[in-house]
């Protein structure tokens, strides 16, 4: 097959932009699943909640969606802490994490989706902002602003979270809890409190990721499901706990999906993430940069 060079180049660039956005979507699960060992499969529901928060506030007051995403993070942080409390009392404390815990998050995912359907209906919703529409042209490469801005800001977010985890006291405690909760207890820190904060952060990222998602494309409640495969593929491929690995995996998935969509049609793209996930699980479960 003769591949035209500028088509391929554009596909790769679009993939990198998409990958940057995927990093914002996956960072929360990298924290909750990778570091805390909580398989929060309801993450997409919280991301959609972020989308609809952006939609409502943008529609009422015309605030910029990215600003909304950043401003609503404290609310999502609190929500995350509440969900973790519930999860802790119902499952972690009893030591029944496996099936019941998964069923709990699955129920949350479903309840979230159906509630959004009941409130907003199944129509596609979108936000308005000046940068949705125009593109920057660099020679033969086209950079749509609605992809570029989420990508840039999501890299900033990943940087901030990484800095927080590696420099601040609580951040280091979160990394410690992911390695050995028992030892943390011996250092007179409560693993439960640290995990609660970490889970709060993982849900807080959904506010921003949701705002990005609704900038990139119109949103309806059931699209969240498409992201489960992507999020967990990225998380596993990136090696579960490693932020650089997560970033690398996001870019990889973005590029592969974008090339698939360009050359085989967008209807095949959803299968890519799963294929990647299955291959990773079968061949190298430790991921790209796993320990």
């Amino acid at each position, binding site marked *: 097959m003769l591949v035209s060079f500028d088509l391929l180049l554009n596909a790769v660039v679009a993939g990198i932009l998409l990958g940057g956005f995927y990093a914002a979507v996956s960072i929360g699960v990298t924290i909750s699943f990778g570091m805390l060992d909580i398989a929060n499969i309801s993450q997409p529901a919280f991301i959609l909640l972020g989308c609809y928060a952006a939609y409502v506030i943008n529609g009422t007051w015309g605030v910029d969606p990215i600003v909304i995403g950043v401003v609503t993070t404290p609310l999502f942080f609190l929500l995350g802490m509440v969900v973790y409390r519930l999860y802790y009392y119902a499952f972690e404390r009893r030591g*029944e994490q496996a099936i019941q815990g998964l069923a*709990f998050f*699955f129920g*949350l995912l479903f*309840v979230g989706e159906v509630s959004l359907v009941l409130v907003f209906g199944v129509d596609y919703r979108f936000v308005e902002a000046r940068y949705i529409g125009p593109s920057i042209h660099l020679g033969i490469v086209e950079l749509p602003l609605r992809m570029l801005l989420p990508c840039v800001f999501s890299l900033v977010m990943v940087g901030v979270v990484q800095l927080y985890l590696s420099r601040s006291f609580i951040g280091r405690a979160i990394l410690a809890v992911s390695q050995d909760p028992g030892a943390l207890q011996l250092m007179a820190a409560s693993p439960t409190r640290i995990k609660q904060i970490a889970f709060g952060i993982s849900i807080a990222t959904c506010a921003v990721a949701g705002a990005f998602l609704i900038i990139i494309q119109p949103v309806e409640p059931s699209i969240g499901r498409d992201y489960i495969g992507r999020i967990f593929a990225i998380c*596993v491929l990136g090696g579960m706990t490693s932020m650089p690995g997560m970033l690398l995996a996001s870019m990889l998935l973005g590029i592969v999906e974008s090339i698939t969509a360009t050359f085989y049609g967008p209807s095949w793209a*959803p*299968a890519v993430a799963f294929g990647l996930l*299955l291959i990773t699980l079968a061949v190298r*479960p430790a991921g790209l940069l796993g320990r």
Partner: protein
Amino acid sequence: MRVSNSLFWVLIVAVGTVFVVASRLTITNEYFYFAGYVVLEYIVLSTAWNILGGYTGYTNFGTGAFFAAGAYSAAVLHKLPATLHKTFDITMAPVPLPVMIVAGGLVSGLMGLGTGYLTLRLRGVFFAIATLAFTIVVQTLIVNWDYVGGSRGIYIIRPANAPLGGGYIQYLFSLMTLLAVVSVGIARTIERSRFGLGLNSIRDDELAAEASGVPTLRMKLISTALSGALMGMAGAPLPYYVTYLDPASSFNLAYAVNSVAMPVIGGMQSWIGPVIGSILLGTIQQLATVTISSALNLLIVGVLLILFVVIAPNGIVGLVQAWRRREA
């Protein structure tokens, strides 16, 4: 009272037969058969789910994929005679529904074996996530497959006359009762067997089971394949039930949610749990769909699932057992 295995089979076959004959003799309202079919379908799905979820301790969120694979296998077999006639000029009799059910079971069973082989060697969480994503992929494949209508869907015309007398919906109803009887029988047989004991040991402590010589991977693979096959068999009559098959409705998340919620609410430790759960939830949903709205009744299922998992993790059966113990 201890009921032996063969006696149990005789009993449930008798119950199934009496159920079908009695409803055929007394009920003429077609709606009963349409609604009853769905409840029976959920008995099969949740019992199948429980073989892997309840007995073995591996969560499958991909019921929709296995179910739809059965349905689409049937759709392909339905179209096959016409295609053969058109392209090769070969005349072939229409494929009877029972053959489609077996074929659907085979396809979904193999699918279960494949996914299981790739992911079951890892921790259970990975299997659960893989099945969740699996649904999206199988759906993508179907959406891109023009022979079965792609995303537009496909119209299926029911055969003009149904075997066993009566209308076609009565025939579907009877077949689904048979499937429900078979899957409940299989579940209970497994429960009381050495194989079931092995599965339970995997659920309680996989490492210890492996160390005691339980062939864990092989047992997990068998139960995944069996569970998938039963789901596929439940899906095979779907094209004739809805007469219009499309990816969005056949891969509906409701199948996955219900087949998790019903065993959890009924109780996952024994065969009766999923049956109680599906009769209860299935009936509530049928009533709610008619009287309230279908979106709201799915919300009810989700909320019930969360409530039971948090408050009564052993389901209704567990509640009854606890209550009995307190009485004694």
